[in-house]
């Protein structure tokens, strides 16, 4: 090309190759995470279980609430996932009273206990947990489907 035998090729004019995208697209890069600047601004939560051996009192799950700013963790053992709302209520009342602040937002995965179950129509209906957050004016943040990495803080507790 430099000797002028071949014509120079103009690379600027190519269309976007959809086929290439279909074959080669990887997961989108994660954007930088936002860190809360005060306690209770963002609470991470996750449920883990069921464990094959029930614990001392027969609980098979645990639910964790982690404050994003301080990384202070609360952990509750529960019998079943449906108890998560009751546990969250008591957690909310306790911390809001102790710290004189209010929970601003809650980040969780899209588990049935948080967001609601899939029904036949293919849509996920908000469950009691999501409705309660709405009532209290707390902003729910959900991870995108199939990307547990966005809930990194809460999943961390699974040691």
């Amino acid at each position, binding site marked *: 090309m430099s000797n002028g035998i071949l014509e120079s090729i103009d690379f600027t004019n190519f269309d976007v190759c959809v086929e290439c995208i279909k074959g080669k697209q990887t997961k989108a890069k994660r954007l930088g995470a936002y860190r809360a600047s005060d306690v209770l601004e963002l609470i991470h939560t996750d449920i883990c279980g069921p464990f094959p051996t029930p*614990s001392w009192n027969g609980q098979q799950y645990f639910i964790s609430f982690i404050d994003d700013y*301080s990384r202070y963790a609360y952990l509750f053992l529960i019998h079943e996932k449906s*108890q998560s709302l009751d546990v969250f209520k008591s957690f909310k009342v306790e911390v809001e009273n102790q710290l004189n602040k209010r929970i601003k937002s809650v980040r969780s995965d899209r588990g049935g206990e948080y967001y609601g179950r899939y029904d036949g129509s293919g849509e996920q209906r908000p469950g009691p947990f999501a409705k309660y957050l709405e009532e209290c004016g707390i902003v729910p943040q959900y991870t995108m489907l199939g990307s547990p990495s966005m809930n990194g803080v809460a999943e961390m507790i699974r*040691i």
Partner: protein
Amino acid sequence: MICHSTLPESLWGEALKTTTYILNRVPTKAATKTPYELWIGRKPSLKHFHVWGCPAEARPYKPNEKKLDSRTVSSYFIGYSERSRGYKFYDPILKTIFETETATFFEDIEFGGKNQIRKFVLEEESVIIPEPIQTITFDEVSSEPPQNIADEPHTQDDLVVHEEQTQDPQQPMLHEPAPLRRSMRERRSAISDDYVVFLQENKDPNNGVMEDDPITIHQAIQNPNSEKWIEAMREEYKSMQDNKVWELVPLPEGVKPIGCKWLFKTKRDSNGNVERYKARLVAKGFTQKEGIDFKETFSLVSSKDSFRTIMALVANYDLELHQMDVKTAFLNGDIDETIYMVQPTNFVSGDPKNMVCKLTKSIYGLKQASRQWYHKFHQVILSFGFEMNLVDDCVYHKFKGSKFIFLILYVDDILLATNRHIARN
């Protein structure tokens, strides 16, 4: 943490709580200070930290401790008290958890030993399976004949004969299961099971009950077993007084008391031996007048269909089934009407003509007894959070999360079906 210690896996909850407890008090990469400091506002203390699962001598709170009792319990440290200053300990002998502040920890010694964990598991599980041991012995014995057959080839008929022969010498060897199985087999081939059962059922009441049981109180007193009958009557009378079934009042004018009667029955166990003598005081319900002594007598029972539906559910979902019956069920019912009853014979206090029993609880023989018992049960069971089935009023259910329990009431027999392992009521 659990792997490092010798503690059972079921303590994972405590291990997790301890983990968060520690993580909240140590610095993290994600924040500038420890979580505890940011959350509470002051620096956490780490002085009280101990190695999780280490053996310890802990002194529990024992108000009734004697001078010579040992002060401490050998236990394992499993966490920090949530709302107070103290530690949680696990007692491996009693398998309990307790909290205390006073303890000596042995953290320096080596305590990792996986063998002990296995022991724990074995202990727990070996309790549950006594039955399969019998079948195992059976299998071992029955595995012998095929070896013999392999040695000498036989025809089909020979094979059967051979097996039967080998079973005969087995009989003295196997104590319990072998004779049971044999009798089943013989009976099936000879006479149908139904016939035998029917005969047995008929035999018992004819030979047993008709002979002994006195019909009137005079017969009971003249009976050779009179002492036992009188004792039984005393018992019944006492239980009625303990339950405050009636109060003695002078008979108001213009009121006719209803009569009462003693019933006697011998209770036998399955072998036909006399188990106990039972006397029961019943009211003469037939002397009750409608509108005065009773209004409604209708009482519900569960239908056969709903019973079968529940049994189908039990079979399908493999639920736990429990059966209970309520002792002296009818005595629990309260009655709305005022009923006067004459005092029971031989247990008269005061002037028998003037003093009568004013009933406060329903008693056997009253027309409304069954209905009142049902109402009482209904109220009590609703107060426990049970709900009535829409179709069959004698079927109750209770849902809590994914746990549920069904209850069928048939007069004083109760059937419980639940998907929990142990029904605590």
